[in-house]
């Protein structure tokens, strides 16, 4: 299967980031159409499309949209999650740099459907290049009457503000993002069912719709062509297209938009093939379990990847060849989570640090065989025991790496050096 470009349809058109060119290519026609529909009709189209959250969780988007109260007793908000921080992912960066108006159009439609008058786009602090593009696009949209009061004479108001982060992976998690936007430390909050969903009590305890950049970017095409059209792509349960950010040991790294259900090996071919011999793939960002080469005969959709023991995640597709030492690679993964743990929940805060200490002992040549089981034990004690998914995400990759590459750990502990070195290869990490 070749690329199937829906979000990226006009990515390569020169000047597509400007309003003029975007409008020439059908830009904002979806907004006009949405404004002529009822709010429930818009939500129903999103439902028919079957689009699922592209930030990593894969939660059906329409349930969030439909879960927003239909009355305006409190102000409603739309929050676009542009705090792209998942290692290996760079799709939102390109969506904002190349197609900022598509994001804005999606947000205004979401605002209309959920009765929100204010939207925020939370962009990570490092992303000043995409943020400047978004800034210019928002200014253009205000001038053209796509944002602000009485949009296109419809009586609908929608203001859109940029809010910049300041360096925290944790803020990509929705409840931490809300804390951060409200001016607090970016720490997560108690979740459903122990607390109301953000759709009921989100920002300032008001109904809030939170969607990823990519999810919102799907909306204009869904409204333009209909939900059924979108659902005709992909598989039955994983509809539409997905952007995969392919990086690592491939010949042509970059963002590739393919239909859901595309075989993994075809995506690798699209990206120019593997440099060297394939060892493993991490299909959905650093948080998802690693997939060894012999298990790579799998389709890229939520269900197939889950059946293969990993996840689609955010689509951060990292390719590792046989020069990568899994033990060192996983030490780097563990160090990342130790650095980014916000410190709120003890299992994650302490567990991630302990894992790094154990890895450092192994790498220093002082590893003991029981360390492997000790790592697994720590994984079990973090997984599911923290407020947000960061703890789980710290445990899954380590656990999967031991499952699939236990022999590498054992070799390192026995010999004090990597099996990759022993094979006479230069170690990539």
């Amino acid at each position, binding site marked *: 299967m070749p690329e199937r470009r829906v979000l990226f349809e006009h990515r390569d058109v020169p000047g597509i980031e400007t309003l003029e060119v975007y409008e020439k290519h059908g830009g904002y026609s979806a907004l006009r159409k949405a404004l002529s529909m009822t709010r429930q009709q818009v939500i129903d189209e999103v439902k028919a499309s079957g689009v699922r959250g592209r930030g990593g969780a894969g939660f059906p988007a329409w349930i969030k949209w439909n879960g927003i109260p239909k009355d305006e007793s409190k102000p409603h908000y739309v929050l676009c999650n542009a705090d792209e921080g998942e290692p290996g992912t760079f799709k939102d960066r390109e969506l904002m740099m190349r197609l900022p108006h598509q994001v804005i159009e999606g947000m205004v439609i979401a605002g209309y459907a959920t009765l929100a008058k204010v939207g925020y786009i939370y962009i990570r602090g490092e992303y000043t*290049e995409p*943020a400047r593009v978004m800034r210019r696009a928002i200014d253009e949209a205000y001038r053209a009457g796509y944002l602000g009061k009485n949009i296109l004479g419809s009586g609908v108001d929608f203001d859109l503000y940029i809010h910049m*982060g300041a*360096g925290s992976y944790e803020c990509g998690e929705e409840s931490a993002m809300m804390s951060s936007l409200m001016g607090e430390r970016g720490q997560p909050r108690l979740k459903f069912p122990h607390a109301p969903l953000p759709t009921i009590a989100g920002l300032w305890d008001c109904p809030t719709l939170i969607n990823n950049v990519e999810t919102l970017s799907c909306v204009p095409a869904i409204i333009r062509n209909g939900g059924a059209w979108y659902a005709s792509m992909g598989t039955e349960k994983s509809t539409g297209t997905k952007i995969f950010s392919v990086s690592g040991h491939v010949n042509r790294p970059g963002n590739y938009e393919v239909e859901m259900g595309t075989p993994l090996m075809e995506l690798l071919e699209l990206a120019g093939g593997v440099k060297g011999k394939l060892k493993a793939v991490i299909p959905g960002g650093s948080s998802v379990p690693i997939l060894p080469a012999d298990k790579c005969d799998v389709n890229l959709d939520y269900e197939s990847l889950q059946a293969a023991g990993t996840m689609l995640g955010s689509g*951060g597709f990292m390719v590792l060849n046989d020069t990568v030492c899994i033990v060192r690679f996983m030490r780097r993964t563990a160090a990342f989570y130790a650095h980014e743990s916000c410190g709120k929940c003890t299992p994650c805060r302490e567990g991630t640090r302990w894992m790094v200490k154990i890895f450092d002992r192994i790498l220093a040549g002082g590893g003991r065989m029981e360390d492997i089981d000790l790592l697994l034990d720590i994984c079990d004690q973090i997984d599911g025991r923290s407020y947000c998914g960061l703890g789980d995400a710290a445990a899954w990759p380590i656990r999967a790496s031991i499952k699939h590459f236990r022999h590498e750990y054992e070799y390192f502990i026995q010999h004090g050096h990597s099996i990759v070195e022993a094979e006479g290869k230069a170690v*990539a*990490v």
Partner: protein
Amino acid sequence: MSEPIRLGEYPRMRRVDERKPPELRFSQRAIEELERIKKHYPNKRAAMLPALWIAQREYGGYLPPEALMEVAYRMGTSYAVVEGVATFYTMYNKRPVGRVMLEVCTNLTCSICGGYEILRYLEEKLGIRVGETTPDGQFTLMEVECLNDCGNAPVMQVGNRYYGNLTLEKIDALLEELKSSEEHTVVQLADTIVQCHLTESERQDIERALARAAQAEEA
């Protein structure tokens, strides 16, 4: 391989006397900007992150305790609250930094694509270690987590810009270019972030308000 992480490291901060009125250093422009950003949210507390960005720019690229004190004053909250927020986020510098901050990514993709080589080369070339600043105050070298431009790994951020597909030759050329430039990349980054918050009409508003203030002063 990266250095062992230093567990429990916490930026020790000088204390300031909270009973004394703070010494206010925000420029008129900064005050105007903050007032407008506060209006984006239903309460002013939400403007905390932008306020700290403004402070980082106004105080020359980092947040000394005096800056946190001023933010607390302008946000109508306590020093402890501001310090709590400022120390949580990695991009707020708690210590003085050089004019040019080199932030090298060594996360997963970059690590297997030569990120550590770039980092070691810079250490050697600048004669400093990660986290340090050159004695002339020109360069600070930092190791950072994923910058999310993995398609161009290895990647480094300098102020407003990402530099990708780095090689040792590219680093040589870039360092020469940065040495001869005058820009304070850290201040520039903070300013860009502040400007990104402001809508076009707000930016025009600020210019008008500043022009009026300048006229009044002349008169």
